[in-house]
């Protein structure tokens, strides 16, 4: 009898945990947890550190999206008005309507080399699994820079545009690995250059990192990052 009670109690605890997890999966986190690696920008502009990672981004609240294959991700990024706005730059706090949902753009600085989208979504009590995040930043080049490459890593699939031109697509369930996806050689024009990406997560953690490599594959550091075109 005592054994039965103990087993019953254990079963109830497991069931309760399952209900909490299920609710979390359906409606977002059980409770918003502050994003320890992200903060609101406090300066007009910033520069990459010696490792070249771009640490200031605008991130749109997540959009439901399921599937990580090439065709599914490509179909997801072509949905809505974003196809024609890939070089547009939103404002911090700007709301957009995506398939009937009001979503907000948030400006963030990351304290790490990567932007932790799991932290971002959880801090807003949003879903972290089966979602698509749009992210945008603007890098200001002091001069025309030829033969540079955008180099990114993402968890999971992602598609990247520079000044409206699709440059990188990596697909499948994957971890964010530095310089995983690398573009062909491209030219940054003098002044603002808009980098936009869609990161699609299946389940679990989700993040991305991005930097620009020079013609010798060294990180570019003499650029300025702000969120104005």
């Amino acid at each position, binding site marked *: 009898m005592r054994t039965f009670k103990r087993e019953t109690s254990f079963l109830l605890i497991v069931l309760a945990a399952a209900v909490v997890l299920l609710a979390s999966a359906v409606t977002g986190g059980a409770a918003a947890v502050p994003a320890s690696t992200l903060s609101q920008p406090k300066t007009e502009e910033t520069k990459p550190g010696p490792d070249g990672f771009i640490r200031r981004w605008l991130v749109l609240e997540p959009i439901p999206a399921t599937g990580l294959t090439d065709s599914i991700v490509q179909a997801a990024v072509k949905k809505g008005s974003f196809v024609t706005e890939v070089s547009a730059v939103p404002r911090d706090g700007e709301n957009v309507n995506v398939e009937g949902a009001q979503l907000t753009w948030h400006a963030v600085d990351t304290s790490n080399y990567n932007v932790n989208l799991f932290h971002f979504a959880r801090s807003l009590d949003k879903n972290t699994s089966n979602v698509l995040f749009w992210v945008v930043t603007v890098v200001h080049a002091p001069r025309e820079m030829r033969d540079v490459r955008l180099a990114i890593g993402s968890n999971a699939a992602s598609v990247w545009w520079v000044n409206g031109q699709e440059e990188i697509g990596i697909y499948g369930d994957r971890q964010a690995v530095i310089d995983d996806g*690398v573009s062909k050689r491209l030219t940054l024009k003098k002044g603002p250059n808009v980098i936009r990406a869609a990161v699609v997560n299946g389940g679990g953690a989700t993040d991305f990192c991005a930097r620009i490599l020079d013609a010798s594959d060294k990180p570019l550091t003499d650029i300025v990052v702000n969120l104005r075109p």
Partner: protein
Amino acid sequence: MKHTLLALVWGSASLALALDGDVGIHDPSTVVVAGGKFYTYGTGGTSLVSEDGWTWRKGTTLPLRQLAPDVIHIGDRYYLYTAANSGQTKADVSMIWTKSLDPGSPDFKWSEPVVVASSDGIEDANAIDPGIFLDPTDGRLWLTYGSYFGHIRLVEMDPKTGKRLHPNEPPLNIAINSEASIMIYHDGWYYLLVTHGSCCRGADSGYNIRVGRSKKVTGPFVDNIGVDMIQGGGKLFVGSSGRAIGPGHFGLLDLGDGVQKFSLHYEADLDRGGASVLDLRPLLWRDGWPVAGDNAKEGTYQIESLRTGTVLELAVEGVPVGGRRTGRGGGFAGTGGVIPAQDPATVSNAWPKGNLDTRMGNYMSQAQQKWTITPVSGGGGYPGSPYFKITIAGTDRTLAATTEAELVVVPAFNGTPEQLWRLDQLYDGSWRIMPKSASGSEGPLSLSAVGSSFATLAKFDPASEKQRWILKIP
């Protein structure tokens, strides 16, 4: 060379194991590059010349029709050492030099021969098979010589004249019971390469190349199990394999950028009627010892980056081998049978037409990840190999270089230089993969894993793993 001149009838020069064209030679010298051409000299004063190191033709005969020459380029001179027996072990090594190896050049004129080493027919030495070595650490020049009857000997030469530096000093014995000796230097060690076994008996020749090493140019040269070469030691460097019998007469061909090849002859190429032929093969290094590499062979491979572990693939959506399996426990039980390899003819129907990008990904045994490497007849070559085309296995889709020094896969092969690929095996067994040309580029480019999921073309950097690739059989 145990015997004097051979009257060899060379076999036909069809594409076979070793090089292309007229490659018949015995006891070839070290291959030297002069004026953009490759030259080697053999027993009987024969010579071979090549524009690219792949297709060879007969060259001008030497003024001395002797045994087993060796040649070296120092300053504005090419010094050639060769030998002749006047008795069983009575022999002289002679030196001649010229400022050009090209018979069309006004500088092409061989000097009168000078004897630089001898054996008197009584001493335990046979002064033939010279090998000349310029020490890169101090610029001193050394000659090794000898053949079976006693010792391999070492004497110092004058790099300014090519002559013996101290003719009255006795030579130093450094090995025994071998021939075709030559020295090379690598990473703090001097390596003495010699040939063991018998020559000149076609497919019955037991020739094989062996090596010992020393911290000093004067020895002792000891093999991998601690046996001094003066006591018959020598680690096997290369022996007979496949249809190539009796390798002998090592010569180093350093192409720069850490790419090394070696010249040799096979006593019998079974695909060329058992004739003695020249070959050039990659020189590899493992645990401080030279290793004979292999030139690229036709076949289907996965092309894996040494840097990232990911493989080059056509940028199309992959289909899991055996189809997608979903649902509860779908991946655990399997199908209960053998899942056949993906049929590229079927899978490729879903691929977009026209030019496609490449990318890199984890190997999943999918059709877009398997590449067939095929030698291209008439496409020219490079030291040791013809150029290859690289196609997705089972399709005509062909890897090519773009004018922007990137990669593209075109629908079909058309033989342009952008679609011809050079594969050089590097010191660690990995491969450098280079297009024959990429228009618009300032210099040679090689396949480069700039990211885990992306490859490009970039200048070869021997210190980087970016441009080193592993060819695996899927």
